[in-house]
């Protein structure tokens, strides 16, 4: 086994299995486990998936939402045990891999097109809205 394979085998068990398919542009819910003192609760962060970067155990996603007319972006490690669940709320069509242009948009132009044309591969996939 090469060195790289050994390194990957060390972190293999930490990569989460069975995550829903999340593409850039989708609106998703991120369920974060927050520990306050000895109590634990779950906070949901809903927003547009703006970028996915990194591979394997290191993969990070950036989610953007608008709170009180102010853009808020949070970056989550996908495989962190502190995140209990991901949910896809709405699928949308994005032509680029990173939606940083959303930062410069306001009002209606901020919305992303619904996924319809030629995107049969995601047609039927479960989202929180339909469930």
């Amino acid at each position, binding site marked *: 086994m090469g*060195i*790289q394979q*050994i*390194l990957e*085998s*060390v*972190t293999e068990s*930490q990569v989460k299995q069975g995550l829903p398919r999340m593409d850039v542009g989708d609106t998703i819910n991120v369920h974060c*486990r927050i520990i306050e003192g000895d109590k634990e609760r779950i906070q949901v962060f809903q927003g547009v998936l703006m970028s996915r970067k990194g591979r394997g*155990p*290191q993969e990070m996603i950036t989610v953007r939402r608008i709170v009180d007319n102010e853009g808020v972006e949070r970056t989550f*490690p996908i*495989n*962190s*045990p*502190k995140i209990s669940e991901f949910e896809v709320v709405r699928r949308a069509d994005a032509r680029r891999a990173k939606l940083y242009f959303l930062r410069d948009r306001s009002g209606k132009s901020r919305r992303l097109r619904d996924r319809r044309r030629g995107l049969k591969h995601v047609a039927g996939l479960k989202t929180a809205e339909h469930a």
Partner: protein
Amino acid sequence: MIGLIGKKLGQTRVYDPSGRAVPVTVVLAGPNYVVQKKTTATDGYEAVQLGFGEQKEGRLTKPVLGHLTAAKVPALRRLREFRDFTLDVKPGDKVGVEIFAEGDYVDAIGVTKGRGFEGVVKRHGFRGGDMTHGAKGWHRRSGAIGQRLFPGTVMRGMRMPGHMGQVRRTTQNLLVVKVLPEDQLLLVRGAIPGAAGEFVIIRESKKRPKVAAKK
């Protein structure tokens, strides 16, 4: 003082039980073979000589090969003594990462990456000069290195440009995050000296030995 010879494989990160991402260095540290046992009676001090790493027999000199055959161990690449080894072992035994447990503290000894001939800014952290504000040709220099007619000489040990790196260094008090006995791997928190693929020595921490850590 227990220890092992190992090979630094590289760095990655793992999540601890509380969900925090911990940076770790992965070290292949076994199997180590006990090659020789030195005693006060025969050698004047107590030590255990360990060997690690596969090697072709033809690449070893005959004296070394004879030394290894006497202990009935395979051809090994690196040999190293550990003084006052606290485990009871005899020549021919195998020791591995099992001698460490999660939560132990270790020291990692390795040869740092060679940087070649480096200037004072990189080598000693000098500030150098301004890059702008009219500075011209005086950006990464060290400044004056002496005083006046008295003492009339450059003080000994003055920090100057020169060869950097490729020296033996020890990083102390690193936490053992995980022990993987099947693959003989140790996950040690943080960075350890040297490039990936280099041989390193992982020994019980001098300042936080095993016994104290368990109390």
